């Protein structure tokens, strides 16, 4: 209890908790779940964009997309490392992902159907991720906070690249503009869902805020995202697919329609439109690569044995 009190005081004083520091088990568990889920999201998130990498329509767009996906893999690595400092190995985390015990962001269970989806992902999905992640740069767990500093810097770059694709298409041929609008129609609601259940249905929020794992509620972040994004859509000349959307002078915010929570919970359960494809791809990559990882280990062992023999 003295330990707990000291811990809570440090957190309240906005000090960073470091791996070697004492921390409550629930804090460790919550953080491990959150960071590994975030890491998995980066890795699974490579797939919907990878779906268009081989079909990117210009050399420049292809190179930018490849570099972006590479950044996501890099983020996944930092985050796995951050989570490992809490005592769970990467293998364990990956196993939890492949067996369906661990989650990843629901957004990546939606399909990428045309090239504008790559723009929409950068603009909306990375945009929403930034809203979620900027406060995490000040999260109470040091390794996580430091990983997020790096992640956030790259994400805002990705968001601008995505917006740039949307801009080119919104100002392109009628077919391109139609693709851009279609992408917005399909990605808008899933992006709003990225902030999680509404505050009424998010029982852990208070605890997470007290521990400075979160710093704002789901609904607060969602509102921020809507407020920031609507003017961007106007700039693009695209229509957000929500008839209830309108500026509320009194609140100083946009009002917007109700999310289809049935769909949200189905996707969380793993029944999203593209969930089977995503898990199949991840499992196949992992299983197909098993012989490579085993060979690398075997070679390393041989090499070490030879060095030892030479030294003896």
């Amino acid at each position: 209890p003295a330990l707990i009190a000291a811990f809570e005081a440090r957190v309240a004083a906005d000090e960073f908790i470091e791996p070697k520091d004492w921390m409550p088990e629930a804090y460790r568990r919550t953080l491990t779940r959150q960071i590994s889920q975030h890491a998995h999201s980066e890795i699974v998130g490579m797939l919907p964009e990878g779906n268009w990498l081989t079909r990117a329509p210009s050399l420049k767009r292809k190179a930018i997309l490849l570099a972006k996906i590479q950044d996501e893999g890099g983020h996944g690595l930092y985050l796995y490392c951050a989570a490992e400092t809490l005592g769970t190995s990467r293998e364990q985390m990956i196993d939890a992902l492949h067996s369906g015990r661990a989650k990843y962001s629901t957004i990546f269970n939606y399909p990428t159907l045309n090239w504008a989806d790559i723009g929409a992902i950068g603009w909306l999905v990375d945009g929403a991720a930034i809203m979620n992640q900027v406060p995490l740069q000040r999260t109470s767990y040091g390794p996580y906070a430091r990983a997020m500093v790096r992640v956030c810097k790259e994400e805002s770059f990705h968001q601008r690249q995505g917006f740039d694709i949307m801009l080119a298409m919104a100002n392109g041929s009628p077919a391109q503009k139609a693709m851009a609008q279609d992408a917005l129609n399909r990605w808008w609601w899933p992006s709003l869902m990225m902030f999680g259940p509404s505050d009424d249905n998010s029982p852990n929020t208070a605890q997470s805020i007290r521990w400075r794992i979160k710093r704002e509620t789901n609904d607060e972040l969602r509102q921020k995202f809507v407020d920031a994004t609507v003017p961007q859509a106007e700039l693009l000349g695209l229509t957000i697919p929500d008839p209830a959307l309108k500026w509320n002078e009194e609140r100083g915010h946009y009002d917007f329609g109700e999310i289809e929570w049935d769909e949200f919970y189905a996707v969380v359960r793993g029944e999203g439109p593209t969930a089977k494809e995503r898990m199949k791809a991840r499992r196949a990559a992992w299983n197909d690569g098993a012989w490579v990882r085993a060979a690398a280990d075997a070679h390393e062992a041989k090499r070490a044995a030879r060095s030892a023999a030479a030294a003896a």
Partner: protein
Amino acid sequence: MSDILFRSLLELGDDSLILAQRLCEWCGQAPSVEVDLSLSNLGLDLMGQATLFLGYAGEVEGKGRDADRLAFHRDAEQFRNCLLVEQPNGDFGQTMARQFLFSTYQLALFEGLVGSTDPRIAEIAAKAVKEVRYHADISADWVIRLGDGTEESHQRMVDGFDWFWRFIDDMFAVDANQRALIDQGVLVDRAALRPAFDARVAEVLAEATLPAAQPVWQVGAGREGRHTEHLSHLLGVMQQLPRAHPEAAW
């Protein structure tokens, strides 16, 4: 003469472009995240080379085609890449065998092209040669690691290399029309690079405990636009969008 230079620049650009496209197919599918990132690095380097060579090719041609037009609006028989780079990825071992063979060749080539009397070629090669030295090293490391790894990985490397032995001469083929450019020092005589290539391949295969290169019937002639069945499939994917919307800008 400028049409021979154009064609020669296509050879250089298409090699890098097609191999980059193959590496893109790995994205999100590699044996580990680290390997995924490493393959992306190779792909990005190759894509950069392709953009520069094809851009210069378009200028030399002088018909208003830029690198994108050349990449996305030619049919298979107009591509001048060697057959090796268009081969399917196979498993990771096969991909690394292909990369090792190609990067070893490309390194020798670019080391020569750094001294090209054409300053644009020399400049591109000077930038690329550092990248390619890394590609040749990292793929040789993998060949050794997997060849001298487990029994399974050894066998997979044997099979992996086996797919490629028929395409080695094709990589080094020189067209009679290119002689003048070689004599002027614009291009490198690829045939002259062969002994060093053979020696390096033999060295790495030996360290990897893998059998030496197999003397099989050699299949030509990628440089003349006669490809394997794989290229048109690759292009079908790569060019899908620009071909469906030929006048759009992206």
